[in-house]
């Protein structure tokens, strides 16, 4: 069968054609074949609409936000104002410096870090167990798999509202369950205490992210060949040993991807907090994203909000770059 294939390594004829043309183009100088030129033109025509939208709604706004972040903290939310000479003359680092003196922002950074750590530790542990269970064959596996996907379909704001009903002080099902089990005798004010409220908000976020975490880990588990486990079992390795010496090392790259994405998604989390606490009590659940929103759209300090958005991006960028570096070292 193989001998009937083209002698090229490329699978496709079009690939082989353009490859051949590129070779001749290199010999003859900068000119390229008409077929390849046509293909390029088509490619640019195809990606143009997507690129145009991305440029108009992502890149241009990113630049505008950058300019705004150096302008006066409080300004009229009008694009013309951004390029008004009066505002442009006042460019300074004030907004960035102000953030270091903003106690709520500092608190929000701490809350965000705590948020991320708890989601990563608790959420990934739960998802790891779930993925290991789903990797077995048992009756009802298909049902459980469908159940796992459901949070992805639930609008995050409805998710927040739902957890509000769970943690409701008077009618909440959490108090109901705990009372029934005899663990508490008085209703707990879940959302009334800063630390407790933060845990409530985090639990809602974890529930929403379980499909992502579980499906990614499960995809990683399914790439591990069964034979390794079988031979390890023959050699007398216990289930715990198999997990730590075979499973974990084999999916470490997947886990790294999951952690990185969790950092990004958790930093973006907004809806559950908005539905449950709006950042309270006493800023206990205010995270960076929420404070950026409130500065911009509640207090109309667009300059300051833009600076906070950029600080968030830089911190997130560091995590992504670290992930990239570890990945490159791991693969070489």
């Amino acid at each position, binding site marked *: 069968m193989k001998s009937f294939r083209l002698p090229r390594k490329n699978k496709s004829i079009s690939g082989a054609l353009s490859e051949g043309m590129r070779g001749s183009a290199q010999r003859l100088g900068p000119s390229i074949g008409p077929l390849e030129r046509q293909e390029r033109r088509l490619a640019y025509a195809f990606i143009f*609409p997507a690129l145009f939208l991305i440029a108009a709604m992502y890149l241009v706004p990113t630049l505008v936000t950058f300019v705004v972040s150096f302008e006066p903290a409080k300004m009229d939310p009008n*694009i013309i104002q951004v390029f008004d000479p009066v505002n442009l003359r006042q460019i300074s680092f004030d907004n960035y410096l102000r953030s270091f003196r903003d106690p709520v922002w500092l608190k929000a950074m701490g809350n965000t870090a705590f948020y991320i750590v708890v989601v990563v530790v608790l959420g990934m542990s739960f998802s790891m167990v779930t993925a290991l269970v789903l990797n077995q064959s048992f009756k009802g596996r298909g049902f459980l798999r469908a159940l796992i996907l459901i949070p992805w379909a639930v609008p995050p704001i409805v998710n927040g509202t739902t957890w509000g009903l769970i943690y409701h002080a008077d009618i909440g099902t959490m108090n109901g369950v705990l009372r029934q089990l005899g663990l508490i005798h008085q209703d707990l004010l879940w959302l009334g205490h800063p630390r407790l409220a933060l845990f409530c908000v985090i639990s809602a976020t974890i529930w929403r992210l379980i499909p992502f975490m579980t499906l990614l880990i499960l995809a990683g588990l399914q790439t591990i060949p069964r034979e390794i486990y079988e031979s390890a079992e023959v050699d007398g390795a216990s289930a715990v040993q198999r997990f730590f010496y075979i499973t974990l090392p084999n999916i470490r790259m997947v886990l790294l991807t999951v952690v990185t994405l969790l950092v990004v998604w958790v930093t973006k989390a907004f809806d559950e907090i908005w539905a449950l606490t709006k950042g309270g009590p006493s800023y206990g659940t205010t995270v960076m994203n929420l404070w950026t929103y409130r500065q911009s759209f509640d207090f109309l300090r667009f300059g300051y909000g833009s600076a906070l958005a950029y600080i968030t991006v830089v911190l997130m960028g560091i995590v992504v770059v670290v992930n990239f570096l570890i990945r490159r070292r791991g693969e070489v």
Partner: protein
Amino acid sequence: MRLNIHRLKKLGSTLLTYFLALVIGLVMAFPLLTLARVSLFRRLDLYAKPIQWIPQTVRWQNYVDVLAPDHIVPIRASITNSFLVAFAAASLTVAITSLAAYAFARLRFPGRNSIQSMLLSVYLLPAMLFLIPIFMIMRPLKLLDTHLSLILPYTVWMTPFVTMILKDFFNTVPEEIEDAAFVDGCSRLGVIWRVVLPLAGPGLVAAWVSAFIMSWNEFLTPLILTSKLKVITTTLGLYTSTYDIELGHMAAAGIYAILPVLILTLVFQRRIEQGIVAGAVKG
């Protein structure tokens, strides 16, 4: 004897699997069961102590009452708006991204890899970075509180993710079929129209469904860019009414907001799962 121990171990691990599956199932179902439970309660019964798990009188009326045109939860108007906006945004997204995804999967051009990485990196940025200037641009243009003010941002938010899952999908369409059409004298456009699109049908539908669900679930964008009742979306409509409202009504509205996307998710379960993995791994 050894056989017995082996069998015992096997039984133990099976039992453990079922036990864990049960616990996981309960945790996953708990929030939705809570929501469904509250949606069927009368206000009085909700406050009963000790807690009533199952309502004594099931109150389906909550689902009817909340649909009243002048209800404090504007669910009737908002579901229509959400459908309209999500439908338009998902269709626009698939139209735009399927072209780009095909180019990334099949065509060769300078800058292919760098444009792809750029597309992926914007996906990671927080929405606040764009929402501030978009608000500043849309306000003087009087675009706030229009359906367009939601459709355009939604389309852009989803473009990177949907491009990647579609590119992944085009990669699974065997290139040999296209090559055969080329040999038969088809042009590139002819191949796309006659060969690729019919084959890509299921993938395009799945991408559309994912985009629809993502649009439907969006909250921060409408919170910032809309405030009027005529464009209010379901998610926003729910939130505007969390104070002093009959909890049964709110829960029923929540069920209404979940139902369309839940059904779509369960129908397209496998494809959505593939999309989540593909989109995340590339990201």
